[in-house]
């Protein structure tokens, strides 16, 4: 598994989360920059799903396969689900849902790194 990609995903997801917090505090709805940034993250996560499965098949490491793929799939689902749910609520709290989604992505990356044996 690409550790660099994982850290990039953590960085971007936390940036998107921080931006969503700014929107939340300013009482704004989900806007275009948030949507585009989130889309970039979604594409990265799709790539990570494919690359992660390939890496899992090739590695000699002792990795819990089911859990590992489970985290990869959940990470792919979190951004679209949170943005759809966030946009559906026409209040600042819709952006709050996106914050939860992004923090979830970051947490999943930490778990993935731990499963891969390079985490904390």
């Amino acid at each position: 598994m690409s550790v660099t990609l994982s850290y990039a995903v953590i960085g971007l997801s936390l940036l998107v989360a921080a931006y969503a917090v700014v929107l939340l505090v300013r009482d704004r709805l989900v806007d275009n920059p948030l949507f585009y940034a989130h889309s970039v993250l979604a594409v990265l996560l799709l790539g990570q799903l494919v690359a992660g499965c390939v890496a899992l098949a090739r590695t000699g490491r002792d990795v819990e396969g089911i859990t590992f793929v489970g985290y990869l799939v959940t990470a792919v689902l979190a951004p679209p689900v949170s943005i759809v749910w966030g946009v559906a609520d026409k209040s600042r709290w819709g952006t709050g849902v996106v914050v939860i989604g992004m923090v979830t992505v970051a947490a999943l990356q930490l778990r993935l790194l731990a499963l891969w044996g390079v985490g904390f």
Partner: protein
Amino acid sequence: MSHLAEQSRSTSSGAGRVLIAVYAVLALSATGRSVVQLVTKGGQAPVAYSLSAVAALIYIVATVGLARSTPGSRRVAWVAITAELVGVVAVGLLSVLDVTLFPDASVWSDFGQGYGYVPLVLPVLGIAWLARTRPRAQRPPGT
């Protein structure tokens, strides 16, 4: 927070949506974890793993109960969230007092430490939210 006061009294709109999102994440992770535990090593720590499965089920019920936001689902959510609070406090105490009872971590052991204490905080927020969004007609006199 005038913003909150303007919200409709549905459990699934406004701040409730964020609460449900957190519930959904916890329900998902607890379900995933308990399924993997039961399938791959069910015999090793049956108490902890069965408990994870029960906890997962309660989180799913609470999530759906809050999200549907009908009078019936509110009652279901009340019961599920209360069970959650009792569960996390009871299991938390037991896991601290008798380490051998839960050799492998469940969602609720050590008061949900493995999940950043979210399992301990969430039912409190859930009950507060249910109380806040309570339909006025159903409030007992004097409140």
